[in-house]
């Protein structure tokens, strides 16, 4: 692109962070994180298909501190992307696009996804320590 001498509109760093823009970029960030996370999913199902040795290796990694940390991050990413994705699907029908509605649905997504992720993590840890 040629150098631009004309005045440009202010870019991102000029604005105060807003809920709407933060959730928007978080949707993309969690989408990318989940794409990377599917590597672990494929590794895990492949390990199960290969045999007990490979499966034990995958389980050992996923059960390590790093593995558990990644799984917790995955749970938060998944439920956020799921809830905010449903918010996007509602917008696609033409509903809830005014400012008060976007903030209300935004906070609903934040609270809902954190609660769902915590429920999943607690249920998972309980199941893990039982089994």
């Amino acid at each position, binding site marked *: 692109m040629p150098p631009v001498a004309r005045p440009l509109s202010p870019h991102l760093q000029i604005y105060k962070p807003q809920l709407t823009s933060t959730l928007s970029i978080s949707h993309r960030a969690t989408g990318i994180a989940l794409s990377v996370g599917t590597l672990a999913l494929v590794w895990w199902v492949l390990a199960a298909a290969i045999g007990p040795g490979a499966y034990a290796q995958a389980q050992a990694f996923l059960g390590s501190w790093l593995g558990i940390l990644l799984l917790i991050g995955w749970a938060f990413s998944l439920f956020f992307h799921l809830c905010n994705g449903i918010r996007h699907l509602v917008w696609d029908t033409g509903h809830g696009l005014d400012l008060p509605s976007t903030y209300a649905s935004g906070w609903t997504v934040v609270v809902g996804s954190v609660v769902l992720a915590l429920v999943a993590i607690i249920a998972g840890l309980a199941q*893990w320590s039982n089994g």
Partner: protein
Amino acid sequence: MMNGSEMRSPLGRAIGLGSAKEGVEHWWRQRMTAVALVPLVLWFVIALIAHLGVDQRAAVAWLGSPIPAILMILMIGVAFYHAALGIQVVVEDYVHREWCKLTLLIATRFACFFLGVVGIFAILRMAFLR
């Protein structure tokens, strides 16, 4: 909606592809895969939590039985399709050097299809060879 009807030829409106020449196909596929993933992922998370910590035999018995195998294959296929579409948009929006963008677009798409096939192969193997 804007009234652009006078600006477009009847043929252009009937074909409905717009200036990008591909219409709403990408957008629509992203939405359809998203809708399909809502129940599939919810099922997967609940079933996964129920099977956390089981040994390989039990994992194969679960993932290889008909309904879980079908749902897993659907989820893996649709998830990688959805991921490929989403990654494409992110790359197109943030990577501006042409060769870099093209390389990333090709590499990420290949990776999504490759990983999807590996995952589906693993499920099929557990379903048929146990």
